[in-house]
Structures are given as structure tokens and as C-alpha cells.
């Protein structure tokens, strides 16, 4: 077992901690405890927070508007020849080779222009909005915490227990995550090293009903949970494995993700892992004066990209790719125009990344618009509401019933297909009515799409990873039953594709791979 150093000079940022009060009159929100579907069982979501407001325009670069980028941000713009080509419209920052590889493998997707209406440019308020998944200033719970509350009312009272021996979420670092703040407690458990042993002395303080009393109960519960969860985490970490050689020991996020892989492979049942990277508030010296491909922002993106690539490689080697998906988020993007300090000020919408083998790969949404007009304080316009992304993750990944999801959010949800690629045909209970299957898969010149339908119009199209249609398989009225539709794919170039099937009853999709 590894030894941890006594002092860690790391300060990972912000969030909220458990909050405990007994005997509170708590009304369970859900009438019946919703059971996550079998398919979602064991699924894990990894969340990486880019703290400070990531500059989306220097991350996912709209190369189709390069000339205007030069107008807007001449002192920080990445030289055109250095940009990593992704598609005709989009390029990556040159340090993001890892994420570029993942994109090409269909294991990274980009959701463009994510934000919320009437952007608040305060770090603190905006981070509250992103972690709570709500624009209501009085909302103190996190978006995941609200969902956990529905499933595990009364937490943290009587947790852990025999049915739920493990933390529901793990926050890598010292602080719990505001995303997991529930009504009475925070569902995330902060750890810095899963191999550290916890054996804290317990007290016998009494809750006398005052603030002091509530603190006594809070600390007691914290000590109990720390010891009990600590044992579970130790056991999982020791039983777990890690196989990738891509992790860099000097990359703090890579080290944390390796711990995450060890805990998952060791059987820890935590559903969410949260990591944090500080430093994205690049008001100045975002790039080096002498070389815009280097500097603070490049270092941060490299940390992220290298770490995520290593983690995905590990998941693949461990056979866990179908169980783990990830996302990044930041409180806002930055303004389109740079400032004279080789930096950028607080802006509006920005891209999010999703990663994993089960993502609906490609690019969702168009590039942000960059004009040749300098508009004071202008940011990128929001096109996709971040709450829709959250809701879609709950639906696609954790298979939460949409009836349960809608009340978690204050606006009417428009679902986005983000994480459904592993859902089809895997689970009897939740079997998609389309029953999609592509065979053979991978395929060379032809393949067959098998689907079920009612007496309805069915449109099936092949899309590339950028979401562009590259061929129509079917677009007609079908009879009820199972259909096997031949597909000529000889014209397609090698790579990953998604077949989207639109029916009256809904949309389904399935991925396949075209070989040479």
C-alpha cells in the first residue's frame, strides 16, 4: 500500500460540504424510490471542472473564421499552421493531441456554445449556476444532489449502510463538490488518495438544537463516514488495477484519474467522480508574449488533454469503457476580443467536452460566430442550455426517467443526444423500441441495419462524427415489425459513424465503424 505524505500542498478549489440535521421534517420528493435501470447499473460519470472560465475560442478553434479571430485577438490567436485540424470548420489548440486522438476514435464529442440565458459574468454566481443547474438564486442544492435526494432521502442519516456501503460520489481533492449538495448533506466524499487509511477517533458530542449542536452532529457524521467510506475506498483501491502507461506522474489530473480508474476497477460503487483544474481565469498572460502556442492556457489544456487520453486508454485496457463517461465544464467562456495583457476577460458561452466510448460522438452545434467587428465586452452567444446537457446525461447515462428529470430543472428540457451510444440493445427492460442493430460491425462495403417499428414513417440516416448526414438508408412508411435494411457504405471513408433513426415514437441511434 502506498503511503501518503503527511502534508499536501495542494489547494483544490471550492464547493460545499455535508450538512446534517436530524429530526427535520423531510418530505420525500419522489413517491416511490426510483430504481436506476439495470443498464445504468455500475455506470460512472467523471466530471472535470475547468475553474476560472475557459477560453473556448482558443480551445475549440473556429478555423472557418480564422481571419476574424485575428482581428479580434491578434495577440493571443494560435497561428493557423499550428492548429490541430479536426474538421474543416474546427481545430484544436496544438497541445491537445490526446483529445484530438480521442475525437478521431469517436471517444470525444464537443457540444458547442453551451451556457444559459443572460450570462452572469461573476465567477461565483456563474459557478453556483453551473453547479446547481439552476438560475434560481435561492437554490442551494447541486444538480446531482437533487437527483440523489430523490433516490436516497434522509441522506446522510444512516448512510453508509449494508445496501449502500460506498460513497455516492467522490470528489478528488480536499473539498466536496457543490454539484452533489443535497438537502441535508453533500453526496460527495472528498479524498486525496484512495490508499490513505482513515481511523479517526470518534466523539460523543450532543446536538443541543443550536448552531453548535448542528455542528456537533455534522462533525460526528463526518468522522463516521470518513472512517467507514475510507475502508471501502481502501479496499477498492487495493483490489483495483491500472494498466495504461500514458499517465504522467507530474500531471496532477492524470494522477487523480489513475486513482479513479483504480477505484472503479476495484469495484467501488460510486456513481460520480469530480475533479477540478484551477487557473482558467486568464485575464493576463494567457499566452506567452513570444509564442501564443505556449503559456498558462496551453499548460492547462495539455494537462487536461493528456490526462483524459491516458484515462480513456486505461479504461479500454481495463475493459471498463462501456461503464465510464466523462464531461468537462467551466463557469463561462471568455470574451471574443482579447485584452492588451495577452489575456481575455469574462465572457459567455463556451464548448463542453464529453468523453468515453458511449458518447454520441462528433460535434453538436455550429461554431460560434466571430465577426470582424470589435464589440466591447462581446462574448459568444449561448445556443445550447447547459441544463439540457445535464438532463440529457441523467436520461442517457443514468437512465433516469424523464418524468423524474423535468422537476429537477426549472425550464422545459430539450434533450440533446449526448451519451446514448451504448444504450441500444443491451438491456431487456429498457430495450429501445427500435431494437437497432448494425451487422457486420465494423463493416467494409455493405452492412445491414436491423430495426423494429410500428406502422409508421421511418427515416434513417448515416451521420459522420460532426453530425452531418452522409447518406440516407431509409426514408419511407414501413409496416409494423422487424426490418433488415441493406446499406451501401462503399462511398464512406474509413472511420466511425452514427446511424440516426427518426420515427414518430422517437429518435434512436447506433454507432458503427467503417473499415477500408
Amino acid at each position, binding site marked *: 500500500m502506498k503511503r501518503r505524505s*503527511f502534508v499536501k500542498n495542494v*489547494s483544490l478549489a471550492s464547493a460545499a460540504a455535508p*450538512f446534517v440535521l436530524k429530526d427535520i421534517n423531510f418530505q420525500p420528493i419522489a413517491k416511490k424510490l426510483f430504481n436506476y435501470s439495470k443498464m445504468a447499473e455500475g455506470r460512472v460519470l467523471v466530471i472535470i471542472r475547468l475553474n476560472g472560465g475557459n477560453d473556448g475560442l482558443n480551445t475549440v478553434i473556429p478555423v472557418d473564421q480564422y481571419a476574424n479571430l485575428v482581428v479580434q485577438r491578434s495577440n493571443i490567436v494560435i497561428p493557423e499552421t499550428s492548429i490541430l485540424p479536426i474538421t474543416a470548420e474546427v481545430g484544436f489548440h496544438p497541445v491537445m493531441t490526446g483529445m484530438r486522438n480521442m475525437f478521431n476514435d469517436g471517444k470525444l464529442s464537443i457540444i458547442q456554445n453551451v451556457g444559459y440565458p443572460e450570462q452572469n*459574468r*461573476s*465567477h461565483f454566481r456563474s459557478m453556483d449556476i453551473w453547479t446547481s443547474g439552476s438560475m434560481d438564486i435561492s437554490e442551494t442544492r447541486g444538480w446531482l444532489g437533487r437527483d440523489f435526494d430523490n433516490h436516497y432521502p434522509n441522506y446522510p442519516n444512516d448512510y453508509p449502510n449494508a445496501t449502500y456501503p460506498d460513497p455516492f460520489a467522490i470528489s478528488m481533492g480536499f473539498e466536496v463538490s457543490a454539484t452533489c449538495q443535497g438537502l441535508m448533506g453533500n453526496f460527495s466524499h472528498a479524498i486525496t488518495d484512495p490508499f490513505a487509511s482513515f481511523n479517526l*477517533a470518534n466523539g460523543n458530542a450532543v446536538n443541543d*438544537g443550536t448552531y453548535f449542536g448542528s455542528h456537533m452532529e455534522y462533525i460526528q457524521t463526518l468522522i463516521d463516514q*470518513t472512517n467507514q467510506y475510507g475502508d471501502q475506498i481502501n479496499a477498492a483501491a487495493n483490489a483495483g488495477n491500472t494498466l495504461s502507461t500514458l499517465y504522467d506522474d507530474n500531471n496532477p489530473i492524470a494522477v487523480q484519474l489513475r486513482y479513479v480508474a483504480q477505484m472503479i476497477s476495484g469495484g467501488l460503487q460510486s456513481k460520480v467522480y469530480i475533479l477540478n483544474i484551477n487557473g482558467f481565469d486568464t*485575464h493576463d498572460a494567457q499566452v506567452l508574449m513570444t509564442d501564443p502556442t505556449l503559456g498558462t492556457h496551453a499548460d492547462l489544456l495539455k494537462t487536461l488533454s493528456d490526462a483524459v487520453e491516458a484515462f480513456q486508454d486505461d479504461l479500454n485496457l481495463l475493459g471498463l469503457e462501456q461503464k465510464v463517461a466523462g464531461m468537462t465544464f467551466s463557469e463561462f467562456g471568455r470574451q471574443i476580443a482579447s485584452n492588451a495583457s495577452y489575456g481575455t476577460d469574462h465572457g459567455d458561452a463556451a464548448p463542453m467536452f464529453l468523453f468515453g466510448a458511449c458518447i454520441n460522438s462528433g460535434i453538436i452545434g455550429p461554431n460560434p460566430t466571430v465577426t470582424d467587428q470589435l464589440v466591447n465586452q462581446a462574448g459568444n452567444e449561448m445556443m445550447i442550455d447547459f441544463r439540457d446537457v445535464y438532463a440529457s446525461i441523467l436520461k442517457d447515462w443514468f437512465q433516469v426517467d424523464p418524468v423524474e428529470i423535468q422537476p429537477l430543472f426549472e425550464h422545459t428540457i430539450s434533450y440533446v443526444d449526448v451519451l446514448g451510444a451504448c444504450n441500444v440493445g443491451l438491456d431487456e427492460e429498457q430495450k429501445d423500441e427500435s431494437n437497432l442493430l448494425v451487422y457486420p460491425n465494423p463493416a467494409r462495403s455493405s452492412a445491414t441495419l436491423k430495426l423494429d417499428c410500428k406502422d409508421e414513417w421511418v427515416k434513417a440516416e448515416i451521420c459522420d462524427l460532426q453530425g452531418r448526414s452522409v447518406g440516407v438508408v431509409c426514408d419511407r412508411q414501413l409496416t409494423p415489425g422487424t426490418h433488415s435494411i441493406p446499406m451501401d457504405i462503399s462511398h464512406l471513408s474509413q472511420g466511425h459513424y452514427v446511424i440516426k433513426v427518426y420515427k414518430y415514437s422517437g429518435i434512436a441511434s447506433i454507432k458503427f465503424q467503417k473499415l477500408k
Partner: protein
Amino acid sequence: MLPDQSVDTPVSLSMAPFAGPWTKWEAAHLLKRTMFGPTNQQILDAVAAGMNATVANVLQIPAIDQPLAFDAAETIVPFGSTWVNAVYPSNAAQAQSVETARQLSLGAWIMKRLNTEPLSIAEKLCFFWVNHFGVTAIQDSRGTYNYHMLLRQHALGNFKQMIKDVTIDPAMLLFLNGATNTLYSPNENYARELLELFTIGKGPQIGPGDYSHYTEEDVAAGAKILTGYIVEGLRSATLTSPQSTFFPILHDTTTKQLSYHFGNATVANNGALEYSDYIDIIFQQDQVATHICTKLYRYFVNYDLTADVEANVIPIMVQTMISNNYEILPVLDELFKSEHFYDISLKGAVIRNPLEAIFGAFNPAESVPNYDLTTNSNLYLLIYGFAQGQGLDYATPPSVAGWTAYYLAPNFTKLWLSSSYIKNRFDFATLVTIFTGIPSGGNNFKVNALTLVDGLSIPSDAPTVIDDLCDVYCPKPISAAQKLVLKNILTNGLPDFEWTIQYNDYIANPGNTTFSDPVRLRIELVINRIFKMPEFHTI
């Protein structure tokens, strides 16, 4: 918020002078909220002096020594002298090496201040301002030192003047990019935080770019108003401190339009003093006083701002602040003498921050390292590191808003404790009590158990020892059952008189470790236990 519904909220919301019995608990409450760790004797002295005299004593800012050079990398000033007005070597690599030495000196200096605080609010209040402005140490420790001394200078002074001076302080100009905010490219960073965090505060967003008390247009106008200052002399080989200099050519001379929140005021060009005109306009809004008084309340009294407190307590503080033209002292003077402050429901309402936990353990035992300068400094740096490991890096707040424990609802100071942090706290408690102590220069620094016990009212009486230790370390009396557990640790399960004999033998044989070691060990075992009790972690 939940505590409103389920926690006993204050009975008294009165800001009238507290007229109840002034006992050890009231005195201890005042000193624990205004200091890092009062001693038993300080608490007893406060009881004897009475409330008014004690508050008057607390509300003074004593002079302090300057940081001293101790690291070999300091090549400009001699060992043991101060470097705060010294130049740097002209060679950049050597300057970097000297800067590293000065940062170490500065870190040790900060910890020493907390460890040796007299009966005064100074250190607790300076930390309040460090948290309020969130400035990170700059790359010239002379500037960092000057900034911290500026906060200390104004800590109990005039808030408006403090804001003005901080606005053009080199550390702030560098931290929030004021030093690169020019006519040619306004940088909004400082202008935004000046409104959002430092003065008027951000309210709910009530329209596009409208935050109840100011708008995005005010941020943009503020950035223009503040243009023109740059920082000179960083790590200079000739200048003895970094300086803020105004360059008229970099200043935006247009007339700036503020929003309806400031009565649509305009700010005409006034060159180097325009920032001051702007701050005067901001301070015409009483919301500034509301913002800072609320923050003072949350820090010194209770993070849970109940509707009753907002309606009854804050307005009195605001009124006092306005009628005293933004002087801070009268507000705190009134608060610390108020009936509300001593309400029983508020004792233990704050969870100690890491430095309150660390020096809350050391200071009551008068544990101050008195080795040579190098050993002391290295020891203080180790303590600095322990505080970092528990979530508090004094010179590097996590963001411009300060530490989350002071602003993030609903948990506030509970954020000082997570499973990671509490483990580090408990490990630290073990280290400085029953384990080796913190090693430095061949010495081991621990909580001085013998000094601690000698300072109690009747050290030879086991029940009194436990009572006094709880008075010093816990915010409220603990149960008889808990006291019995602690007393059994003290006496090792033997009758109380055995402790009396042991203690008296130690007193009768000064310098004889055969007699002092058992006493020390028993006290160490007791405080090791106390430092791991939930009660200790609140004040």
C-alpha cells in the same frame, strides 16, 4: 436556509449594550471570536476587567516586528535584518533566488504574528481583510509585505480610505490586472471585483447585465476610470519597493457614464485622482455599508444570516457605519458590546478555520518556539504547510472572493471540514500532543503541556484541570459524562488524589523530568483527545 427552520435562532436581536452577567463564558466568547487562541489567564483577566474595558483592549492594533532574513539565499541584507526596504540583485536568476528567501521569511512572519498575538483583534481582523480582498502574494515580497501592512493600517480605520488605498496598491494592481488596464485596452478585472466583492456587492440579476446594485456598463466605465496606473520597481536593483505610478498618456480622459444605480452620475476626467472620485460616488450608496457589515457579521458572529438578523441587527450596524463616515471601529465596538453578540445560541456557531484550529491549540498553552531564528522560521513554515494541508494558505486565497467557507451557502464554515481535511487536522493534533512534535533544527515543537497546566486555576485538582481545559478549548460546557472520560484519561483511571500527588511532586522538584514527564504525558493525552472532539472545532 435550513438552520432557520430547525436550529434555535438567537433569542435576543438587540444591539443594546449587553447587561447580563459577565462571566468566564462571555469573556471567552469575545476573545475566541476576536483572537486565534486566548489563554486561560487572558480570559480570567477579561472577566476581571469587565466587558467595556476588554472590548477597548481588543479593539487596538499593536505594532509588530518586521520579517527578518534567515535563508542563505538572501544575499542583499545580513542574516537577522529585515529586507522589506532592500533592493534585489540586478541579475534575474539571483533576484529570483532572493525572492524565494523573502517569501519564506514572509510566510514565517505571518505565522509568528498569529502565534504571538497579544490580547487584540489585530490578527483575526487582518485575516478578515486578507479574505475580503483575496489578493495573492506577488512576485516581489516587499510589495506583498506592504500590502499586508496596508490592510493592518486600515484594519480598524476608515473603510472608504482603505478601498482607495488598496485600489492603487501595487499588489492589487498586479493581482487584478489594474497595472495593464489602459486607455488602449481596458481590463475589467479589478473594476468588476471592486463592485461585486469589495464595495457594493452583487445582488440578484434583475435584467441583462444588471446585478441589482450595478450593471455591466458600470464595470466597463469603472475599467476606463481606473486606467493609467502601472507598477514600477518590481524586484528592482535600485528602487526599495514596488510603486504605483500614474501615466496620463495611458488614462482614458473621456467622461464616463454610470448607470441608474449610481443616479446616472458621470465621472469626468480627473487623471490620477479619478479613481478616488469614483469610489466617493460608489460610497454614496448605503448598500456599501450593508455589504461590508453583513460580511463582518458573518465572520465575527454567525454565517447564518436569518431574516430577523437582516431586519434587526444589520441595519443598526449599517447606521453606525454611515453615521461614522465608514469608520470600522465604532461598528465592531457596538457589536462586541451588544446583547445579540452574547446570545447563547451563537456560541459554537462558527467552525474553526485551520489557523484557528492550529493556533487555537498552541496559543492557549503559550507555545511559542524560542529557538534560533532559522529554527523558528523553518518551524513556522512547517506550520504554514500544515495549515495549507488543512485548506488555508494564508498568502494565497483560493480566489478573489476569498475562502469558500466565508461565502458559499449553505455550508459556510462547515467547508473547513471534509473527510480529507479532518484527517489532516487529526493527524496534526496527534503530532503536536502525543507524538514527536514538529521537528525543526533538532528540536521538536509541541503544545507546551506543562505551561498549559501551570496556567490553570488549580492545576493540582483533576476536575478543575478538566473544567479549565474545556473553558479554553470548547465554546460551551461539555456534558458531565464527557468530562468524566477526560478526567479518566488525566488520572489514568486512578482516584483524583493520585493526580494531585503527581502534580505536587512535579512542582516540588523543578527541572526533574522524572516528575514532570508523567504530568506532561497525562496532559498531552487529554488535549490529544480534546483536539479530536467535535466541540474543539467550533468557537
